[in-house]
C-alpha cells in the first residue's frame, strides 16, 4: 500500500499530518536469528498506529528499535525528517520519544508523584550546584514542572494516590502511572507496549479512553502493541501486522481485517 503524505482529517475530526517516524528497510539480527526482516513502516503525526501479530513476531523488537534499545544492523530510522544515527535510549528520550513497558517498569520505591516527576527529567535543566542550594532557580524549576505533572495527574485521575509509593498500588493503577510518567515527558511520539495486558474489561475501557483522550487533547502521536483485536480495531487509524519478523499487512483496520495473509497468520493455514 502506498501512503499518501498529504494531511487529512479523520471522520472523528482529528488531523493526521505528515510522516513523523519513518523506518526504512529495518533488519535486526540476534546472532543468526533475524527478529526483524527488512521492514519498512511509518508513523504519521497525530495518528494512533497499532502493531499487531502473533507471539514472537518481532513487535516488541520493533518498539525497542524505535526507542533505541537495539540498533538495527540494516536500515534507517528517520525521525521528524532527519536520519537518526545509532543512539542510546536516554538520547532517544531527549528527542521526544517516550514509552511504557509490557511488564510494568516503574520505580517501585518512589511515590507516584516522584515517578511522574522523573518523566519530566528531559525538561529540567538546573545543574547540580543550583540543586544543592535549592533556593532560587532549582526550586522554581521544580514548581513549574510540578504544575505540568499535576495536570497529567488530574488528567489520568490518579490524584488520590500521588503520595503513595508505587510498590503498594494494584496492577491497573500501576499501568496508569506508567502512562502518566511517559506523558509527563510531553513526547512527540508515545510508544505503548501492550497497555492493556492483564486487565479486565472495565480497566481496558478506562485505558482505551485515556489513550484516545491523550491523542485528542495533547495531539500526541501514539504507536501501540496490543493483542486485544477489538481494542486495536476500535482505537487505531492504521495497523501494521507482523509475522515471523516480516510485515504481512499494513493499512486501515478494515483493510487489515480482510487481508488474506493476516487471516492465515492468525488462524493458521491449511497446507495441502
Amino acid at each position: 500500500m502506498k501512503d499518501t503524505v498529504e494531511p487529512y482529517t479523520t471522520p472523528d475530526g482529528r488531523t493526521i499530518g505528515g510522516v513523523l517516524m519513518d523506518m526504512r528497510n529495518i533488519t535486526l539480527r540476534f546472532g543468526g536469528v533475524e527478529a526483524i526482516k527488512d521492514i519498512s513502516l511509518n508513523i504519521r503525526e497525530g495518528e494512533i498506529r497499532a502493531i499487531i501479530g502473533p507471539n514472537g513476531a518481532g513487535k516488541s523488537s520493533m518498539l525497542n528499535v524505535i526507542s533505541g534499545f537495539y540498533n538495527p544492523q540494516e536500515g534507517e530510522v528517520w525521525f521528524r525528517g532527519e536520519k537518526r544515527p545509532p543512539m542510546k535510549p536516554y538520547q532517544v528520550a531527549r528527542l521526544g520519544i517516550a514509552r511504557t513497558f509490557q511488564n510494568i517498569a516503574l520505580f517501585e520505591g518512589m511515590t507516584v508523584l516522584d515517578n511522574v516527576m522523573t518523566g519530566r527529567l528531559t525538561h529540567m535543566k538546573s545543574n547540580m550546584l543550583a540543586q544543592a542550594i535549592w533556593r532560587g532557580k532549582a526550586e522554581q524549576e521544580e514548581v513549574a514542572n510540578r504544575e505540568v505533572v499535576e495536570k497529567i495527574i488530574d488528567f489520568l485521575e490518579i490524584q488520590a494516590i500521588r503520595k503513595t509509593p508505587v510498590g503498594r498500588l494494584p496492577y491497573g493503577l500501576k499501568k496508569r502511572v506508567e502512562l502518566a510518567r511517559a506523558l509527563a515527558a510531553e513526547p512527540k511520539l508515545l510508544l505503548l507496549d501492550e497497555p492493556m495486558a492483564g486487565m479486565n474489561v472495565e480497566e481496558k475501557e478506562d485505558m482505551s479512553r485515556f489513550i484516545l483522550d491523550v491523542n485528542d487533547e495533547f495531539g500526541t502521536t501514539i504507536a501501540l502493541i496490543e493483542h486485544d483485536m477489538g481494542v486495536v480495531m476500535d482505537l487505531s487509524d492504521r495497523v501494521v501486522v507482523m509475522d515471523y519478523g516480516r510485515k504481512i499487512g499494513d493499512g486501515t483496520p478494515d483493510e487489515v481485517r480482510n487481508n488474506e495473509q493476516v487471516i492465515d497468520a492468525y488462524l493458521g493455514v491449511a497446507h495441502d
Partner: protein
Amino acid sequence: MLYREAGDFKTSYHADNQTFPIKFDRIGFWITMVIAFLVIPFMINDYWANAIFVPFLIYAIAAIGLNILTGYCGQVSLGTGGFMAVGAYACYKLMTAFPDVSIVIHIILAGGITAAVGAAFGLPSLRIKGFYLAVATLAAQFFLVWLFNKVSWFYNYSASGQINAPERFVAGVAVTGPNTDPWAQYMICLVFLTVCALIARNLTRGTIGRSWMAIRDMDIAAEIIGVNPLKAKLTAFAVSSFFIGISGALFFAVYLGAVEVGEAFGIQKSFLVLFMIIIGGLGSIFGCFAGAAFLVLLPVALKVIGVDVLGWPTDLVSHLNLVIVGALIMFFLIKEPHGLAQLWRLAKEKLRLWPFPY
C-alpha cells in the same frame, strides 16, 4: 493528638516540597537546631564530646555519604573506610603544604579530592552490579589503605608512619591539635554536618535525586525516561565520596588528631558505616542520623549499664556489643530493610489517626 498531619493543608507546591511538611516536625527541627547550636556547646565536656557527640556527628556525615550511594542510587560500596582515608590524607597533605590557608577550605578540598577518587573507583559500576560491585569497591578499600601505608610521601616521610594534625584555628579558636576545647571540636563538626545534611536533602529531593533513585529501582526504565546512567552513577559516587571525604578529614583532624591508616580506616570502618545506614534506613537522610546515633550510643550505653551498673567484666560487655550489633543487622535486614527511619514513618502513619482510628 499533638502530632498530626490531618488539617495541615498545603496551598502551594512550594509548601508541599518543603523538607518538613508537617508543622510539628518543623517545630521539632528548629528546637533541635537551637539545642544543638546554643545549648550543647555550653554544657559539653571532654567525655561527652569524645565518647558521643563528635563521633556521632562525623559518622552521620559518612552515613549520609554512603546512603546517597547505596540507599539512593543502589550501588553497594564497601570502600567507605578507604574513601575516608583519602579525605584524611588529602586534608593532612593540604594542612602541611599550605599552613596559612583556613582548615575549613582544606576540609572542603579534601572532600573534592575524595570525590574525584570516588568517581574513578565508581567507573566499574557502569559494567557490574550488586555483589560484584561490592567486591570491586572492597578492592578500592584495600588498595587505598595499602597505598597510604606504602607510599611515604603521603605521611610526609615520618618515622612512625602516622599522620598528626597540626594546630589550626578557625576565627581565633583552635579546632585541631592537642589544645582544642571540646566545644570547638563539636561546633566545627556540627556546622559541617548541618551543611552536608542540607545539601544531601536538597539533592535527593530534586532532579538528580530522582535520577539516582530511578537507577536504583529500575535502570532500564530510567534510561528510557532520559537518565544518563553514566552520569547518574558517577555523580552518585562523586557526591557520596565528597561527604565521606569530609567525614574522613574531620575524623582525622578534629577527632583523633593522629592516625595510623590501617587502624583508623580499615575494613571495619566500611562495615560500621554500612551497618549505620542499614539500621538507620536506606534511602533516608533521617536514617543516617538515627543509625549513626544508634551505633555510637550502643557501646557507650552497654558500657554504662554493663560495667558501671551491673559490674560485669569489660571484655564481656564489648563482646556483647558485637553480638547485639550482629543480631540487629540480621533483624533489620529480614524484618525492616528500611530501618529505623521506616519504623518512624510507620509510627507517623499510626499517629495520623490516633487515638480514633475509625
